[in-house]
């Protein structure tokens, strides 16, 4: 009697474990993760991008601008710390902006402002731009893998929702969303860029 119950609870535990594991995988491939070891603190990278030229980095944050040139797509991102599955955290904490230069065409209507993105690539050096009247130094990187995260439910939430309960969207933050992975290909904007 007891053993039947214990077998049942073990089975349940395994199922729950598998379901949890499905939600918590890393997004960037293990090979690239390995290349990115040891990780470079973004603050140091921004202070002196040239010192890290050629190193592989995994960065993410909020898209500020996407610009297509003849051969490249430039994605300007406001850096955010990443969580264990390589997703940018929902926070105001940022160590600044970075610029990714991807060799493939990324559509600015998809890689739109305010969307969350994670990019793995190599440090190419620095990019100098203008933010208001401030001369701004961006670390410039290439794209090996990019992952565009689904829009948060917060963005789709009715007006006022988000302001009143800032902790609430956390629960439904892309991959933590109860239905993550069940929807259409919208959720699978993962690209391995040919270089």
């Amino acid at each position, binding site marked *: 009697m007891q053993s039947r119950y214990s077998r049942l609870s073990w089975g349940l535990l395994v199922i729950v474990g598998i379901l949890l594991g499905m939600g918590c995988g890393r997004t960037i491939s293990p090979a690239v993760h390995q290349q990115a070891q040891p990780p470079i603190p973004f603050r140091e990278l921004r202070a002196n991008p040239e010192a890290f030229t050629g190193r592989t980095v995994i960065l993410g944050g*909020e898209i*500020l601008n996407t610009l297509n040139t003849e051969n490249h797509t430039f994605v300007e991102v*406001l850096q955010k710390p990443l969580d264990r599955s390589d997703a940018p955290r929902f926070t*105001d904490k*940022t160590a*600044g*902006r970075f610029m990714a230069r991807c060799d493939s065409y990324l559509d600015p209507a998809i890689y739109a402002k305010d969307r969350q993105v994670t990019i793995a690539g190599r440090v190419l050096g620095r990019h100098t731009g203008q*933010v*208001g*009247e*401030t001369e701004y130094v961006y670390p410039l990187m290439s794209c090996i893998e990019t992952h565009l995260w689904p829009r948060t439910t917060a963005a789709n939430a009715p007006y006022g929702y988000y302001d009143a309960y800032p902790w609430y969207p956390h629960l439904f933050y892309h991959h933590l969303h109860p239905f993550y992975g069940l929807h259409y290909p919208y959720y699978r904007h993962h690209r391995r860029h040919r270089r």
Partner: protein
Amino acid sequence: MGLAIAWRWMGLISVLLGVVACAPVFTPAVRSQVDPTFSYAELAASPASHVGRVVLLAGTIVDVTNLQDSTRLTLLQYPTGRRGQPRTHRPSGGRFLLLAPGYLEAEVYRPGRALSVIGEVKDSKTCR
């Protein structure tokens, strides 16, 4: 007897939670420099006579501009609550300008966000 102890514990826990929820946003050292009798209406009426005073202002961001080595914000003033937060459901007292030293990320200090600030009155400016 057991019930009385339970009630006492619940009382203690709710007081603790209350204290946690109301943690002040500014350090006491800075907060103590603020004149508690200050009224925004007086400041707005005659900024010149307030120059040099340390005040606590709160509001929502209307505009952000990064200057060469400072950041200029335009805010819509609202009365401050006990923790210094803007009470946006109250009537606004109008706009004020904030000149913050250094670079503030305009994509974080976005229009619409609520902001509280302790600073020194510098000047007044006429804008369109």
